[in-house]
């Protein structure tokens, strides 16, 4: 073993035990609006999400303050959630509204409720360890495409990540090189801007012919332009345009969001809406959104494989062609301290534009080598007749 003096050590504090302050998307509204209670494990707690008869979706602590029954195993009755244990009825505001067998509801019969936001087909909850409501102006921007009949409906994916803190997914926003190795993209332009509670990634990319070979006679995607912003700690909107060989552009909006289950697991969700191109019926457009989503899924699955085996690292050793990991984490820190302790340093505007010259030279060589290897394999007589 090398003398320890010469070895750079990986350093990592334990993942924080508090959860980020901010809006967190729990999923699609349509998946919660069926009149039954839904259990969600988030922020180290068990929550119940339910829609009343009035259609209003509420989020409460799942444990009934009476005898600890699990409300997520209960029943929606009117606009209240009824506990399966003794039928105590809890309203969306967290107050006990009725106890069918009792003369009156005891004093202070109130449980924890989370502020919610239903917007553009998604359900959000506000988490604040200090218990304050969302400040004015801290919100999620509207996504016009989500309600636009010229776009498809959300095609949505949910995956639970065990054994990793959600900082791993947030790091992605600055990690240009991993987009080539893990997501099969080919970034040619890459810039990050952090300001206030948003962190943005401007990216231009070209297609990877070694990954998705062009089929003769089809109109291949030759690249994409993307502006992706985290609005707060966990919800990213990627305003994305796919460029095609024939000059056609296909606009899409990709969501990449997560909520923490606890310090070492989180739920990753992503979804896409795609503009319905002329000549495609709704079914064909939905199939196209699914194809795009499924390609994105391959990248996320590879992220997950990396996260499962990697070490948490607070002192990454960066080269000049890497993105601003440390400055991103400085920005991210604002969501983990009390609102009164957020410093200018965390929110001041910071820009970082990467020089893609050297990475692009290396990646072009790699793509060409992959193509050459594929051609060689195709011409190898040993492969003749092989059908699988």
């Amino acid at each position, binding site marked *: 073993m090398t003398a320890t003096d010469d070895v750079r050590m990986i350093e990592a*504090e334990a993942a924080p035990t508090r959860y980020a302050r901010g809006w967190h998307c729990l999923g699609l509204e349509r998946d919660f609006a069926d009149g039954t209670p839904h259990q969600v494990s988030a922020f180290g707690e068990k929550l119940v999400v339910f829609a009343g008869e009035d259609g209003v979706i509420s989020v409460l602590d799942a444990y009934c303050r009476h005898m600890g029954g699990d409300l997520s195993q209960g029943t929606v009755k009117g606009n209240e959630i009824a506990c399966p244990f003794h039928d105590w009825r809890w309203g969306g505001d967290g107050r006990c509204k009725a106890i069918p067998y009792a003369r009156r509801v005891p004093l202070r019969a109130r449980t924890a409720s989370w502020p919610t936001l239903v917007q553009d087909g998604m359900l959000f909850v506000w988490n604040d360890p200090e218990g304050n409501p969302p400040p004015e102006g801290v919100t999620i921007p509207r996504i016009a495409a989500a309600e636009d009949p010229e776009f498809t409906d959300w095609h949505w994916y949910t995956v639970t990540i065990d054994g990793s803190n959600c900082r791993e997914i947030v790091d992605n926003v600055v990690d240009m090189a991993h987009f080539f190795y893990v997501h099969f993209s080919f970034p040619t332009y890459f810039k990050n801007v952090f300001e206030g509670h948003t962190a943005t990634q401007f990216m231009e990319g070209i297609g990877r012919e070694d990954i998705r070979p062009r089929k003769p006679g089809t109109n291949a995607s030759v690249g994409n332009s993307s*502006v992706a912003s985290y609005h707060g700690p966990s919800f990213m909107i990627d305003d994305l345009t796919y460029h095609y060989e024939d000059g056609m552009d296909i606009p899409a909006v990709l969501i990449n969001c997560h909520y923490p289950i606890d310090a070492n697991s989180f739920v990753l969700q992503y979804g896409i809406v795609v503009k319905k191109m002329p000549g495609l019926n709704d079914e064909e457009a939905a199939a196209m959104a699914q194809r795009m989503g499924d390609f994105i899924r391959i990248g996320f699955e590879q992220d997950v494989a990396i996260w499962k085996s990697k070490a948490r690292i607070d002192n990454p050793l960066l080269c000049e062609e890497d993105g601003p990991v440390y400055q991103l984490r400085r920005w991210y820190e604002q969501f983990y301290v009390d609102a009164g302790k957020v410093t200018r340093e965390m929110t001041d505007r910071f820009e970082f534009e990467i020089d893609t010259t050297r990475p692009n030279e290396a990646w072009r060589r790699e793509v060409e080598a992959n193509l050459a290897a594929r051609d060689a394999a195709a011409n190898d007589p040993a492969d003749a007749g092989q059908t699988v």
Partner: protein
Amino acid sequence: MSVRPDNRLADVAMTPLACTACGAGVEVRKSSWDQTSIQWHQDAVDACVERRATTVGAGPNGAAFAGCAALRDSVRAAAVRGDLRVVDEEPLKANPENPEHADDHA
């Protein structure tokens, strides 16, 4: 949870620079001719003419301000003058076909 310093800043730190258009003071670092980091502060954001002239663009991320062209030019000019160190020591590439650079190759 404390955030550590960027290991790259140990080699070459961020350097103060004033925009030649509005005088906004920022800190910059260039690791190559095509790489730039810019640390703004609130007074620079308030001073920036382009920033103030920018309206919110289309789309959900339209509020994101990609950057100021005048500041970019100021940073580049400082690097060309030699007032701002570029970490990568490769010389600035000039296009020999461009008559503006004819002297470079004379």
